């Protein structure tokens, strides 16, 4: 059990390791009073065990988040090497791991959003299956609920399930302190109409075996302007001047012109650990959110609103080597609130179940498991049955996965890890095999090399698979259809990676990873067919697989300097290049000109290019100065 825990352990920010090394020396010089104020939990995370982590990964703790002054979970991820964090409007972000974003380039804005990373809260996927990715503002928890964030870089479907293609982010929530009653609060007011509130109450009962925590969070932000760019006018206009793209009518299409983000959530967490072999926990919560950003454009404006309400329940149990988790989420989404009011509303039900078991066979530890995920989306309650929705139906995506993870340590310095997983999807109805083969070799206590060969795949989305939307009545022109495909092959990434982690001296620690990935089966949404019916030509936009291959080669390094226990400096950067093979570039655009009877497909030219949308270099520099325990000065600059 212990070994397999370490096996899948996420390593910690390399900088922290240096800090630990240095602290060990300095601790003897600290006064007893200072010693009593050291938090062992966070300090312990900066220990040798994290140093031996087999994966390219980083943990950001609540203390680091607090020291950095981050106001959102997405901002806190800027402390993690290898991340591209783009702020789209005030407080709204698109988060990528290592890039591979905006594929294929030149397509719709929503293709620039990351759909290939898996985000979880306490192991529960919080994935948007409408068009993929994560709607960060719709997470039910606030920053005040976060104990730590674990980030794994690189294809990790075999370990974490579908969609962990470029990596996985797991947000671990806090448990109540070991006190009969505890309360925490954080209120922030700022410019741009920013106000943020996190409150929680905790209670530990029965000798701290039973822990209960309830929390609430609130966040409001303004855009800083009330106008929108209008494709229709070619200029900035107020929202009431821009037509709804489905009806052509002007009106109250942007009802919250000044807001960029509004969200609120409430959660309850209960855990019960009667003994070392049994640990049960349950969490449940509700949330409501609105975000106004460049998430999904229409032919009227690049800006749109999206709103969500949802509730969830998540139950977990670790019982004598068995780990089980079951979750349910019910949501309402309007992904184009205001601007495409008749088309974009959905109800969803998402269910997940996971069961794993530890089998310790001496030198080898096995962890077999089974996983089921189901996402049901319907727009039938919102006029979908009358051909006005994107789906006009209730559609279900599901997959069942079987996996086996093995950890083998033939001798002290060498560890071999293999994880293999097969998922059977209902859409497309086929099987996908994913794997991760990992080896680590410790030359000495201070120097470790690691190598990973892995393959992962994304899951499917309802829009890509089941879009069935028509623009026009089918009689008058233009008549345009937007059609999904149930047979789209799922995007797949393979990776080979080598890494080195070393304590160079007691002040300096280095972590380097060099990776090469190849991504294929990407999809696009293009005008691809001109059909003919009784009333003339009509245009079909179809979701389709591409011959495009994206090959990324890069390196991420993280350097940590801790000249004393009071000062910590960290620099991290990723240098990468992504080459695209078989990129179909539009040379001329689609022409829809019903007044002149012109309907033309775009002209395409196939080419190999260097992908420009992921920066060649991105990273950050941070510094912490903590002269006394209760004061910390943070300075940081991140470029993404």
């Amino acid at each position, binding site marked *: 059990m212990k070994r*397999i825990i*370490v096996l899948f*352990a996420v390593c910690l920010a390399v900088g922290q390791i240096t800090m630990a090394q240095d602290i060990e020396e300095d601790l003897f010089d600290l006064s*007893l009073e200072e010693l*009593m104020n050291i938090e062992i939990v966070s300090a312990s995370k900066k220990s040798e065990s994290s140093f031996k982590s087999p994966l390219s990964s980083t943990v950001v703790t609540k203390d680091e988040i607090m020291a950095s002054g981050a106001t959102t979970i997405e901002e806190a991820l800027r402390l993690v090497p290898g991340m591209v964090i783009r702020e789209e409007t005030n407080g709204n972000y698109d988060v990528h791991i290592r890039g591979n974003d905006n594929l294929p380039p030149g397509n719709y804005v929503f293709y620039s959003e990351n759909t290939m990373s898996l985000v979880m809260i306490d192991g529960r996927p919080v994935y948007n299956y409408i068009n993929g990715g994560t709607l960060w503002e719709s997470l039910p928890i606030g920053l005040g609920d976060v104990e730590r964030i674990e980030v794994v870089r690189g294809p990790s479907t075999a370990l974490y399930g579908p969609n962990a293609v470029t990596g996985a982010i797991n947000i671990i929530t806090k448990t109540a*302190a070991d006190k009969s009653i505890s309360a925490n609060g954080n209120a922030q007011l700022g410019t741009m109409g920013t106000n943020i509130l996190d409150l929680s109450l905790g209670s530990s009962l029965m000798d701290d075996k039973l822990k209960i925590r309830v929390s609430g969070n609130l966040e409001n932000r303004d855009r800083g302007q009330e106008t929108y760019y209008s494709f229709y006018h070619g200029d900035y206009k107020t929202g009431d001047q821009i037509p709804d793209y489905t009806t052509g009518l002007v009106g109250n299409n942007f009802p919250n012109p000044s807001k960029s983000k509004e969200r609120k959530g409430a959660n309850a967490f209960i855990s019960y650990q009667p003994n070392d072999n049994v640990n049960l926990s349950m969490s449940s919560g509700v949330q409501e959110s609105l975000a106004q950003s460049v998430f999904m454009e229409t032919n009227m404006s690049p800006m749109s609103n999206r709103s969500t309400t949802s509730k969830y329940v998540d139950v977990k149990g670790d019982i004598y080597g068995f*780990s089980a988790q079951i979750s349910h989420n019910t949501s309402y989404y309007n992904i184009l609130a205001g601007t495409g009011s008749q088309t974009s509303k959905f109800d969803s039900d998402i269910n997940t179940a996971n069961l794993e078991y530890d089998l310790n066979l001496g030198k080898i530890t096995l962890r077999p498991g089974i996983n089921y995920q189901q996402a049901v989306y319907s727009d039938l309650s919102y006029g979908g049955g009358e051909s006005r929705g994107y789906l006009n139906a209730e559609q279900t995506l599901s997959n069942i996965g079987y996996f086996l993870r093995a950890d083998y340590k033939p001798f002290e310095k060498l560890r071999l890890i293999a994880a293999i997983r097969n998922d059977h999807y209902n859409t497309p109805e086929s099987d996908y095999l994913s794997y991760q083969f990992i080896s680590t070799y410790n030359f000495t206590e201070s120097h470790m090399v690691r190598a990973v060969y892995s393959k992962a795949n994304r899951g499917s989305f309802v829009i890509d698979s089941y879009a069935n939307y028509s623009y026009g009545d089918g009689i008058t022109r233009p008549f345009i259809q937007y059609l999904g495909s149930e047979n789209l092959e799922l995007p797949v990434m393979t990776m080979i990676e080598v890494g080195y982690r070393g304590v160079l001296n007691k002040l300096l620690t280095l972590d380097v990873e060099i990776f090469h990935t190849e991504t294929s089966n990407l999809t696009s949404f293009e005008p691809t067919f001109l059909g003919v019916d009784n009333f003339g030509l009509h245009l079909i936009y179809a979701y389709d697989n591409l011959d495009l291959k994206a090959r990324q080669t890069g390196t991420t390094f993280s350097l940590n300097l801790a000249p004393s226990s009071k000062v910590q400096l960290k620099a991290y950067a990723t240098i990468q290049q992504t080459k695209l093979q078989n990129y179909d570039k539009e040379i001329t655009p689609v022409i829809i000109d019903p007044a002149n009877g012109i309907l033309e497909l775009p002209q395409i030219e196939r080419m190999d290019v260097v992908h420009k949308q992921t920066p060649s270099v991105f990273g950050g520099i941070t510094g912490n100065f903590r002269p006394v325990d209760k004061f910390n000065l943070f300075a940081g600059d991140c470029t993404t």
Partner: protein
Amino acid sequence: MLLLTMVSIQVAWAQKEKYHSILIYNFSKYVKWPDAQSSGNFVIGVLGNSKIEKELTDMASSKQVNGMSIEIKHFAAISQISGCHILYVSQEESAKIDEIQARTKGQAILLVTDKPGLAKRGAAINFVEVDGKIKFELNQQNVENRGLKVASSLSSLAILV
């Protein structure tokens, strides 16, 4: 992912021993032993198996207490306990606290334990964890019964029981 959440707990314990060893070193500065024990080596005994022994051994190689070299002694059984300034009782031996008391009664030994409740059952100092920080309980009566004296600067930082 459940696994990941357990990692920190696992790691925390490994690191805890290091802090305990540093605190034990600090205690030696704030406790006064009888003059008869102020020469020779400063002996720290460890009863039972604990990772702290390695941490203490590492520390002993570079530190001194009042000019005395530090010697770490391992006691596999209660019957082996003899001649130490500080005795650390591993968690696995904690249940035998009454037996340990009987064996060391009257000896000038600072008895250090790491299990809830032991400061009330004979230990001089007992490590506890409060809000993720290591604290220690101090039972002054148990200290004085063994002819030791504790500086007020130590007792002011302790949870007195």
